[in-house]
């Protein structure tokens, strides 16, 4: 059983390393992620539309604000679940 688990881990690792060869180089400005027109749009308009100089924050809290609200709700739900399941004392 342990050998089977080791085999699966090695196989997965080999597949990931093989697939990793095709990734663009780190910081490559010609990569598809940088060439996409949405990237150009965010770089040009994020500051004038959101008023924040950090494009990551502009995306996180403005363009994808609904998604971030969901993330906060997930963390809140996790905390409340642990509170209800594991709390050993009276509230």
């Amino acid at each position: 059983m342990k050998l089977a688990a080791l085999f699966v881990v090695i196989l997965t690792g080999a597949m990931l390393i093989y697939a990793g060869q095709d990734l663009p180089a780190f910081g490559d400005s010609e990569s598809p992620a940088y060439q996409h027109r949405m990237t150009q749009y965010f770089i040009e308009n994020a500051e004038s539309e959101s008023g924040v100089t950090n494009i990551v924050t502009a995306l996180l809290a403005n363009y994808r604000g609904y998604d971030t609200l969901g993330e906060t709700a997930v963390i809140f739900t996790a905390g409340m679940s642990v509170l209800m399941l594991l709390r050993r004392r009276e509230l």
Partner: protein
Amino acid sequence: MSDIQQSIIIRTIVRIMIPFILLFSLYVIMHGASGPGGGFQGGVIFGAGIILYAMIYGIEEAKKKISDKANRILASGGLVLYAGTGLLAILFGGMFLEYGVIPLMPTTAYTAKILIDVVEIGIGMTVLAVMISLFFDISPPETEEDMHIHEEVE
């Protein structure tokens, strides 16, 4: 564990460092709009500061600083602050979380900047309260021996 808690060096260093950790976490939360930072990271740093205090000075002592009730209010208050900002935009005739329509500042971009900060504070409140609450819930209850150690050192 108790050896570490008894060490006067660790107790003093922790007491000196915690205000700076908490201040840095507030800086990280408020700096999210103009540089690396944000509510998630800042909230985790704040939670780590309180957890450090709880590890050295004991869970019961940490609960005197930030109680279970305060944790619950912070966790739900942060989410309400975030969702409330979104609903406020609907009240002013925009879409959910469309910050620009709220007539808070002269330009829409400036309003969005202020409200993004508000939203980051909401995220930070929820994350820090959940971090601390998780640590309090998972840690074993303190025995009388543990309490005795803290009294002895003081």
